[in-house]
């Protein structure tokens, strides 16, 4: 077979690579436009503030918004302190010995576990054995465990990127370890840590498999931690799969995508603003 000359190969490669890249980009753009085109018209103040009626065929999605927010807040409130604390310990208080390795191994394994297994686990432990039932409590706890590894990883990276010289300066001024961590390291790492938390929020919003088996899928407005509730993604899934209402499904999907877009924008904003402020 005659070998292509390097120039031809280069051209062919470039064309091929760019084509594939554009396909990738194109897919995303297509998805967003497709959903938005059909979903945006459905969005209105009413849609957002009214509760679903008639199994979701009519009405809005307010109770699902509340459910989503409740679950996410509970999950973050649990996962963020645990995650950031773990990251602080791993970077500031250990040398990399066996203890570190065990903890890190635990976090990385946790990161790889599929959401359905979390759902299974949450169902057996929280819903059944602990008798919380299908509830925001069960869902929030399960989600918290799912988000934990991500928060650990991003916080660790943020803390590691604080220059070592900052710590030297703090110590040489006569600070204790804890003072150094709280007065110098954490404030400097804060944008990175917050970004990680915000991204986790995005992930928990889109999570379906874990929530459907722990928080259930009740349509009415949740009244307490023990109420069952439906998140927006679960609502979307049910609407779409059961064919209950296509327009409402598109509307819900549009809200989901807007939320994700908003979250990504927020992280860029945070990082850029803080980088500008301090360098």
């Amino acid at each position, binding site marked *: 077979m005659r070998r292509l000359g390097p120039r031809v190969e280069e051209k062919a490669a470039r064309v091929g690579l760019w084509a594939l890249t554009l396909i990738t980009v194109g897919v995303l753009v297509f998805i967003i436009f497709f959903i938005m085109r059909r979903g945006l018209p459905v969005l209105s103040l009413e849609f957002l503030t009214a509760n679903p009626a008639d199994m979701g065929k009519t009405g809005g999605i307010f109770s699902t918004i509340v459910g989503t927010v409740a679950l996410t807040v509970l999950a973050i409130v649990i996962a963020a302190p645990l995650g950031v604390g773990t990251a602080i310990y791993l970077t500031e208080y250990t*040398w990399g010995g066996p203890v570190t390795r065990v903890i890190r191994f635990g976090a990385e394994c946790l990161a790889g576990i599929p959401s359905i297994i979390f759902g299974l686990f949450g169902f057996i432990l929280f819903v059944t054995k602990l008798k919380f039932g299908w509830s925001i409590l069960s869902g929030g706890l399960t989600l918290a465990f799912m988000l934990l590894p991500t928060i650990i990883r991003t916080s660790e990276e943020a803390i590691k990127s604080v*220059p070592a*010289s*900052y710590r*030297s*300066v703090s*110590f*040489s*001024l*006569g*600070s*204790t370890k804890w*003072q150094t961590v709280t*007065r*110098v390291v954490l404030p*400097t790492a804060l944008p990175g840590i917050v970004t990680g938390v915000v991204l986790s929020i995005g992930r928990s919003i889109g999570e379906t498999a874990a929530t459907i088996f722990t928080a259930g899928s009740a349509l009415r407005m949740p009244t307490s931690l023990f109420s069952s509730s439906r998140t927006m993604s679960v609502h979307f899934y049910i609407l779409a799969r059961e064919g209950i209402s296509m327009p409402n499904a598109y509307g819900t999907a549009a809200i989901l995508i807007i939320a994700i877009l908003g979250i990504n924008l927020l992280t860029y904003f945070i990082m850029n603003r803080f980088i500008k*402020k*301090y*360098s």
Partner: protein
Amino acid sequence: MSGIAIEVRGFSQYFGEVRKIRALDLDIPRNEILGIIGPARSGKSTFLCALNRLNDLVRGSRHEGAITIDGLDIYGPDVDVVELRRRLGMVFATPVPLPRSIYENVAFGARRAGLRGRDKLDAIVRDCLEKGGLWEEVQDRLQTSGLKLSGGQQQRLCLARILAVKPEYILLDEPTSGLDPISTMKIEDTLRRLKAEYTIILVTNNTKQAARVADRTAFFLNGELIEVGPTAKIFTAPDDQRTDDYLRGRFG
């Protein structure tokens, strides 16, 4: 009040199996500037970090011998290391302003010393910036970020910062190595002024700087103290041939 402030006896510093400082004996008098010169990797910076026990933060570090500061064995069992580090302020080779405003950089040090209250902080920030020779240049922009200053200004900021914790000693590790001549001169002037109130130990790669600023000079080579004495003597008639060779540039 004069006399010997720091006594070093038979001090060695190890990091794991590597010995960075060997059997050091040195007396450092009060209210003087001691210059430490020597080629790279001769243990000069390690010695500074041994004085404020910053070396303890490195894994696998250990020492032999003793260092006594104002009569206190700094490696003794009852020593409060945090307090010790406050008493020996350190300025590093690369200026490291914290990512905050100029005011907050100096105030950081002040707060470490336990100071609270806006008026007190204002006063001490001004006082330290004046002592550090930076007040005039920054007095009307105290809220701007410390990172926006020039290299020389940043270094003087670092100096002001440690003054805020009320140290008794100032340790400087090649403080002007990356700076332009004017900034260097300003810092050297500041050190001369500070000598009256503090005991200063200056590690420098620039022998001429030691000649300009130091009252006494010590020459380190491969982790050992080769010679120490009044600067004039070291530079004109050193006792050890190696000192002479280094100063003449025969190696380095």
